[in-house]
C-alpha cells in the first residue's frame, strides 16, 4: 500500500494536498498497489479525497490532533504504516511535513527524500532539488519503506469522480505523546502562501524603498499574485522576512515570477529558477537576471509597472465579460 499524509485546511484540501494524492496514486498505479490517505484531527468530506486517486482514508478523529505535535503525528503515521504494511509514505514538502516526515523516517528506518520534483523510477530513484534550486540530485532510497516529501507545484492534479472509503482509525496515545501546546496562530488571510503560489510579484533594491511597494501591491492584486522580495530588501526591513526568496530564503516554483528591480544574483536565482515563466523588469541592461528570464522589459520600474498593471486590468476586464 502507498500512504499519503493529507492536511485539511478549514474544511478544504489545498492544491498541494491534491497534488500529493495524485502523485501517490500514480506511484500506486506504477507499482500495482492500493493508495490510502492518512488524515489526523477533525475533518470532513473525506470521501472526496477519492477524487484525486485514493481508495481509502484512514481518519484519526482526535481533537488533540487538530494542532501539530510532531511526536503524536509520528506515532499515528507509524502505527498506520505498520498495520497496513505500507511500502511508501508521501508528504507535501511543507512546514508540517518538515517536522513529521524525518521523525517517521528515523522511527521506521525508512529512507526519506525531501523536495522531490518528479515520480520515482522503477528502482525508486527520485529526482530532488539540491543546492537550494541550483541543481537536482537523483537520490536512491535503499530501505524497504520509502518516504517522499514532494515540492508544491511539481506534479499535476489528476481528478476523477471516484469516492474513497473512510475508515475510523484508533491510535493508542498516551499523555507523553502530547507535549507541545499551541498558544496562538497568526495567519495572513486571503493570500496564497509563497510556497504554493502560482503567480508571484517580487521586488528588489531597485524599488528604492518600502514606500514604493504600492505599485507592486497593485500589480499583485490585479492578477491575484503573492508578493516576494530579494534578500537585501528583507535585510533592510523594507519587507517581512517571510517574503524573502532565494538561497537563504524560500525556494519557490510558481507558474509566473515577475521580478522588478532585482539584478539576479546567483543566490536569488537559485530560489526562483524553477519558476515556469520569468518576467524581468529592470533598467540595467547588464542585470544578470535577463539571462535567466523568458520575457524582459528594459526600463524604469516606476513607469513600466503601473503601465503593465493597467494593461493587465484591461486584459482582465475584456476576458471576464
Amino acid at each position, binding site marked *: 500500500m502507498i500512504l499519503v499524509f493529507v492536511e485539511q485546511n478549514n474544511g478544504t484540501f489545498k492544491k498541494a494536498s491534491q497534488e500529493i494524492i495524485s502523485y501517490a496514486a500514480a506511484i500506486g498505479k506504477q507499482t500495482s498497489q492500493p493508495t490510502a490517505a492518512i488524515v489526523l484531527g477533525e475533518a470532513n468530506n473525506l470521501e472526496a479525497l477519492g477524487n484525486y486517486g485514493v481508495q481509502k482514508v484512514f481518519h484519526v478523529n482526535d481533537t488533540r490532533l487538530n494542532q501539530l505535535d*510532531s*511526536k503524536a503525528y509520528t506515532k499515528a503515521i507509524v502505527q498506520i504504516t505498520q498495520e497496513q504494511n505500507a511500502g511508501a509514505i508521501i508528504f507535501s514538502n511543507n*512546514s508540517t511535513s*518538515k*517536522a513529521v*516526515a*524525518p*521523525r*517517521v*523516517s*528515523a522511527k521506521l*528506518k*525508512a*529512507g*526519506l527524500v*525531501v*523536495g522531490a520534483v518528479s515520480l520515482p523510477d522503477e528502482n525508486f530513484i527520485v*529526482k530532488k532539488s*539540491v543546492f*537550494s534550486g*541550483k*541543481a*537536482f*540530485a*537523483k*537520490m*536512491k*532510497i535503499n530501505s524497504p519503506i520509502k518516504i517522499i516529501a514532494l515540492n508544491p507545484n511539481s506534479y499535476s492534479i489528476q481528478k476523477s469522480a471516484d469516492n474513497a472509503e473512510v475508515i475510523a482509525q484508533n491510535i493508542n496515545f498516551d499523555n507523553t505523546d502530547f*507535549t*507541545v*501546546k*499551541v*498558544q496562538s*496562530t*497568526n495567519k*495572513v488571510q486571503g493570500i*496564497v*502562501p509563497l510556497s504554493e503560489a*502560482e503567480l508571484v510579484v517580487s521586488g528588489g533594491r531597485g524599488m528604492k524603498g518600502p514606500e514604493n511597494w504600492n505599485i507592486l501591491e497593485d500589480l499583485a492584486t490585479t492578477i491575484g499574485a503573492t508578493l516576494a522580495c530579494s534578500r537585501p530588501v528583507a535585510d533592510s526591513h523594507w519587507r517581512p*522576512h*517571510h517574503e524573502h526568496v532565494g*538561497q*537563504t530564503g524560500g*525556494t519557490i516554483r510558481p*507558474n*509566473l515570477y515577475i521580478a522588478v528591480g532585482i539584478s539576479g544574483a546567483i*543566490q536569488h536565482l537559485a530560489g526562483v529558477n524553477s519558476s515556469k*515563466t*520569468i*518576467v*524581468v523588469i529592470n533598467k540595467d541592461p547588464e542585470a544578470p537576471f535577463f539571462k*535567466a*528570464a523568458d*520575457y524582459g*522589459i528594459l526600463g524604469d520600474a516606476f513607469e*513600466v509597472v503601473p*503601465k*503593465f498593471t493597467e*494593461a493587465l486590468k484591461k*486584459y482582465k476586464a475584456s476576458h471576464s465579460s
Partner: protein
Amino acid sequence: MKILVCLTKAPDTTTKISFTENDSKLNEAGVQWIINPYDEWYSLVRALELKEAGIATDVHIISVGKADVEPIIRKALAIGGDEAIRIDADSNDSFFIASQIAEYAKANQYELVMTGKESIDYNNSSIGAMIAELLDRPFISHVLNFNIQNGETTSVREIEGGEETDTCPLPLVISCQKGLAEQRIPNMRGIMASRTKPLKVVPASNSEPLTEIISYEMPPQKSGVKMISPDNVDELVKLLHEEAKVI
C-alpha cells in the same frame, strides 16, 4: 542547562555549482566552505545569547565530518561556543548524521539541541526532527523566536502564510529559521581563544545510510529572453496569455 548546536559545512552561497565524475560528485575545485548559514547566524548565535542571559550554562558545537570541517568548527568556537565535538565520518545521508549526533547527545545529556532549518546544499531539513525522534523528544521546526523561562520554552515558528506560538517543556530539539538572531562576526579575542578551546574527535558509530545520491543534473537552460519595449506592455500581457499561458 547544556545546549548542543549542530553545524554542517556548506558551499558559500555565491558558489557556481558544477559536477564531476560523470555528474556523480560535486566539483569542489574552488569551492569556499562556510558554516551553513542557518546553523551559524541563527542557531549558534541564539544559543550564545541564552548563555549570556544566564539561561544556558554550556554551548557545545557538534559536526559530523572529516578533518576538513575543522576550520568551520574553529570559526564557530571563535564566535563563542565553549567546546566542540567532531564525529569522524563523511556522509550526506540525513539518518546516518542524525544517528551520530543523537547518540552523542543521549550520552551527554543536553536539554536543548539546536539545528538550522536546513542545510543550503542538500536542503533535506531533516536532521533536527530525526534527532528528536531518536531521543524521543518534542521538536519545533523553523523557529523565528525562542525563549526559556523556568524550564518552559516558548517558540514562534513559521507556518505557511503565518506564524504559530508554541510552548513546550525542556528537553527539546528545535530547528532555526532566519530572524531568530542577528549574525555575529568573530572578533580577534574570540579567534585567539578558539585555538585553545577543546575540539574532541569521536569515532562514528555503526549506522546504515538509508539513501544515496546516484547522480546530479543542472536545471534546463532558458532558451533566451524575449525583450519587449517598455512602451508595449500590451504585448507582454498577450505573450503571457497566449504563449506562456500563465494568466
